[in-house]
C-alpha cells in the first residue's frame, strides 16, 4: 500500500495545493499533484504515491549507492 513509483516531470502548472505536473512513468504519462514537492522542476524525478509526489529524488545520493557498491566489489575481489 505504501507503493510509490519514480517518474520524470515533463511539465508543471498551477500553484500551491493545485500545483500539478505531467509525469512520465516509463512511457505512461499521468497528471500528478506536485504541491508537496515545490522544489521539483521539469526533468527532475519525483517519487509518486496515490497521485501525489512525496519526494524529489536526490540524484547525488542515488549515485552514492552505486559508489558504495563499487567499493564492496573491490573488497570482495581482494578477499
Amino acid at each position: 500500500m505504501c507503493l510509490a513509483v519514480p517518474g520524470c516531470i515533463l511539465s508543471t502548472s498551477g500553484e500551491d495545493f493545485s500545483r500539478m505536473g505531467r509525469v512520465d512513468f516509463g512511457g505512461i504519462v499521468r497528471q500528478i499533484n506536485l504541491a508537496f514537492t515545490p522544489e521539483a522542476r521539469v526533468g527532475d524525478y519525483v517519487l509518486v504515491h496515490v497521485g501525489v509526489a512525496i519526494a524529489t529524488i536526490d540524484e547525488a545520493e542515488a549515485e552514492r549507492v552505486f559508489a558504495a557498491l563499487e567499493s564492496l566489489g573491490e573488497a570482495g575481489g581482494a578477499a
Partner: protein
Amino acid sequence: MKHVDEYRDAEAVARLAGAIAAATTRPWTIMEICGGQTHAIMRFGLDQLLPREITLVHGPGCPVCVTPEAYIDKALEIAAMPSVIFCSFGDMLRVPGARGDLLGVKARGGDIRIVYSPLDAVEIARANPGREVVFFAVGFETTAPANAMAAHKARSEGVKNFSLLVSQVLVPPAMEALLSAPDTRVQGFLAAGHVCTIMGTEAYGPIAARYRVPVVITGFEPVDILAGILACVQALEEDRHEAINMYARMVRPEGNLPARTLIDEVFEIADREWRGLGVLPSSGLALRPAYSALDAERRFGAAENAATAPSICISGDILRGVCSPLQCPAFGGACTPEHPLGVTMVSSEGACAAYYRYRGATRLAGD
C-alpha cells in the same frame, strides 16, 4: 525505468549477498516492518540469498491487514446505502469484515468505486452533488499527505457531500509495541522507507537507543533491501544501536515538510486499534475538530467493535512477527488467495499471500 532497473541488477545483488555473508558471524533476527518490502523479499527470493544465520521476520506494515474489523463493517454498512458512492483503494475490497466484504456489497448493487487517489474521490463528489461520497482513508504515514490534501481541498473548495472514513496508523508506536512484547524475536529493524520520506528519521534514533536495536531506513528494490540488511548486520555485529538512513535519495532527516505541515493541520494523533495488535496508544491519526464535518463516522455513526468469531487463522501472530505463515495449519489448504481466511492472505502485501504466491512450490517440495 530509471531509478528502478539499476536497483534490480543481478551482479549488484550478488555482490551485496556476498558482503552480508562475509559480515555475519552469529545468528540474527531482523524484521522488515513494511509489507511492500515483504512482498519484494519473496518476489525476488532475497531471503534465499542470505546466510543461514539471518532470519527475516515480517512486520505489521500492511495497512490493509491492520485495519480493524469494526472499520470494515462500518465501510460495508455505509457502502450499502443507496445515497452513497463509496470510494476505496482496490485492495480493501476483499478484506473480510464480520458480514462479508465490499466486493459482496458491490455485487448486491452498492455503488463502490475503486480510485487511484483520494483526490479522485473529491472529484467524484464534485461531479455528483446529489450523492454522498465517502472515501475509505486507510494507510500509514505515506498515504496521510494525500488523504490530508483531499480533506483540505474538500473543505476549502466547499465540497460538502464528501467525507472520509479514517483508519490512519503510524509506524513508530507499532515498533515500540512489538519491541515491548515479552515474546519479541526482533533484534534489528528495516524501517519503512516511504513512511520516512514523509516523517523523516527523527523518531528512530530514540527507539534504537531505548530498545538497543539498530533501525535501518530501507527502500524497496532488491539492492535497497540487501544494502539495508547489510547495514543492519554490520551494526548488530558491532553492537551499535542507532538509526541509519540507507534510503537517502528519497528520505531527508526532516522528511517532507510541506506534507507534514498539512498532515498536522488536518489530523491529530489518536489511539488506534490495529488488527492483530489491539489498541495502541497514540498510534494513529484522526481528523481535527476543524475538519470534523468531513468525518464519515460523524455523518453515518461510529464504527463499533464487533465480537470476532474464533478462527484457526494466526494472522495476529504473523503480524507481530512471532509466527511464520508456514506455521499456520490452514496455509495453502483451507486458506488460499482465492478463499482467504485472514487478512494476511487477502492483501498482496500480507505475509501469507507473499509466501503463497512466491513459495507455493517450495512448500510442496518440503512437505
